[in-house]
């Protein structure tokens, strides 16, 4: 029973990683940017949700929507301030990585100032914090919430990108910006749309992660490594792969921490990622190389 409970814990933890990884993957597949500022979208969304509940008295659900929109807007801001000038000049992947590090540090400092660098948490009773009993297993409502949100949002994002004209246009810009432009697609609008979508999904991951604990302006930093590993494990640029990678990382982490040693859980988890990459260098579901989505 303990094993089953820990697997469920791992899947629920992995659901948050999966959401983050999907946000990460959207940016990479449409803009070919390894965005290290992705974590601050999660932090920003969680903090906006916190301020909306604690300072303005909004119910958690409404505050979460505000937070998700804020996550999207931060992503658009980062894209337009840091990445768009580089795109215009045709700067390489490395330039974008460096620009993203700059935005990461700058926005994190704003987050630090806004909270006076102290831990914060959603007000008591604003977030569903009870337990749900299913067949002798006790799950937390926050875990169920994370799982349901991940399934719904990742499915919707996949359908949006693969079953709609808008998604086809976004993917077309990712494949070849110039050809997409010739076909009548406005690349700038699609890139802003992709950034908004990426920031919103990542922001949701941050809000869910923060819902069961106190957090500070570092919240997104802790997600960045797990999210990046999930994308690499599942396959760069593939939404399904990123989601699968996130869940696997969550389960690996929990089981290795619980049954082997917490001290080595990161080493074990990322060692397994390395093994998978030696077997499939493009990730489990990936078909593209690192340089090209």
């Amino acid at each position: 029973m303990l094993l089953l409970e820990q697997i469920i814990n791992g899947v629920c933890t992995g659901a948050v990683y999966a959401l983050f990884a999907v946000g990460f993957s959207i940016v990479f597949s449409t803009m070919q940017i390894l965005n290290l500022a992705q974590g601050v979208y999660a932090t920003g969304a969680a903090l906006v949700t916190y301020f909306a509940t604690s300072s303005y008295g909004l119910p958690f659900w409404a505050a979460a929507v505000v937070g998700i929109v804020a996550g999207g807007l931060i992503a658009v801001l980062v894209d337009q301030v840091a990445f768009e000038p580089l795109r215009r000049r045709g700067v390489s992947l490395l330039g974008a990585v460096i620009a993203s590090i700059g935005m990461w540090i700058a926005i994190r400092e704003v987050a630090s100032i806004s909270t006076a660098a102290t831990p914060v948490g959603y007000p008591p009773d604003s977030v569903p914090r009870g337990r749900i009993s299913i067949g002798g297993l006790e799950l937390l409502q926050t875990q169920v919430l994370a799982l349901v949100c991940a399934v719904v949002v990742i499915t919707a994002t996949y359908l949006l990108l693969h079953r709609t004209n808008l998604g086809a246009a976004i993917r077309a810009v990712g494949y070849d910006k110039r050809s997409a432009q010739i076909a009548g697609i406005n690349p700038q609008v699609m890139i802003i749309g992709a950034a908004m979508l990426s920031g919103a999904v990542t922001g949701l991951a941050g809000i869910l992660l923060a819902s069961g604990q106190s957090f500070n302006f570092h919240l997104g930093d802790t997600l960045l490594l797990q999210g990046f590993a999930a994308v690499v494990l599942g396959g760069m640029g593939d939404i399904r792969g990123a989601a699968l990678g996130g869940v696997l990382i969550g389960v690996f982490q929990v089981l290795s921490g619980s049954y082997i040693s917490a001290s080595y859980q990161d080493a074990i988890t990322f060692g397994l990622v390395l093994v998978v990459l030696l077997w499939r260098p493009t990730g489990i579901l990936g078909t593209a190389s690192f340089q090209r989505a």
Partner: protein
Amino acid sequence: MRALVPHTRSARGRRRAALGVMAASALALSACAQGGGSGSGGDAIQIGAIVAETGPIAGAGKTFIHGARIAQEQINDGDLMGGGRQLELVEKEGSEDPAKSASVAAQLAADQNIVASTCCILSTVAGAAAPIAEKQEMPLVLWGATDLDLASPPYVYRTVTMPQPANEKLATDVVDSEDIESVAYAVMTDNSGIVSQAEAFEQGFSDAGVDNKGQVGTLSTTTNFTSAATDLINLDADAIAVVGTQSNAVGLIAALDDKGYDGQIVSGQTISGSGVFDSQPRALEGVPFPVYFLASEATGMGADFADAYEAEYGEEPDDFAAQGYMAIYTLATAIETIDGEVTRQSLSDALGALEGIDETIYGTPVAFEDGQLTAESAVKPVSYTAPDGVIAPWEPAAN
């Protein structure tokens, strides 16, 4: 159009004279600075402070320097060092980052007017700054790093009241007050200071005859504590000692609360601090943790400190603020014993000769042995009280 005019003899002479005056001034200033001392000629005695008002633990960092500033004011106003000598804090931001703090420590050491420095909340940062102080032969007073064996006279001293003896005493107090026969430990295993704090809890519970049900590890990078809480509850212990850095310990206590653990949770001093209670009020209420300084119980010098701090910063000083205060107060106490010029060497000698301080903000005398301040008799078990999160003496549930 500007005409080209050759330099006249008088113009050249004035320039040479000016250069001569500047060179002489620089030489004089340099000569004054050579001694690395201050305080004997009416100049303020300069103490460098590597602060952390930004960075990952700025919340705690601000509290340390706030306490230090209050100490500076009270020392100067009360002429504690005697002879009208005044203390000046030279603050530089280190963000509690090892590389940045080491660089700042080197800058402070290069300034010969500064006779000592104080710093460091994290042991890794102390580990980076201490070798610079030793190499430059400048006294360094650590106000917060709690890893074992960091004090290293004659140049590195530590005034932080250590959490290890406090944890050991808390374990004994909790067993005396509650019906506890078994205990499990939650330990953040990738921080040696935290591990040694957990060992102190183990020692205290073991000495009280409590059965050890096992340990569950977490890491500083842990993002979700539900899994660790599940393992801990599965150990079926009467009590769980949660030992981690602030966010780690609070996250795990919240997860235990969410999972419905109904035993006794105890934790370390790390769960105190501005804003912590408001982030998880339900989970933190009634969880005992040890402190050395409790503003609401302070008397005499401690009450004066608490009043001045509250007037200046609008909140009660906590243990971290008290540690910032004690770093400066200990330096001032050592300076008071120096008759002549206060230099790095004379201050190092004075700190080395200091055996204790009779009157402190802790309300009890403190010992100063092998470069380490100890105040074990001042340890108090406290907890947050609802609804405002006021820290008060811990009331066992059995009462």
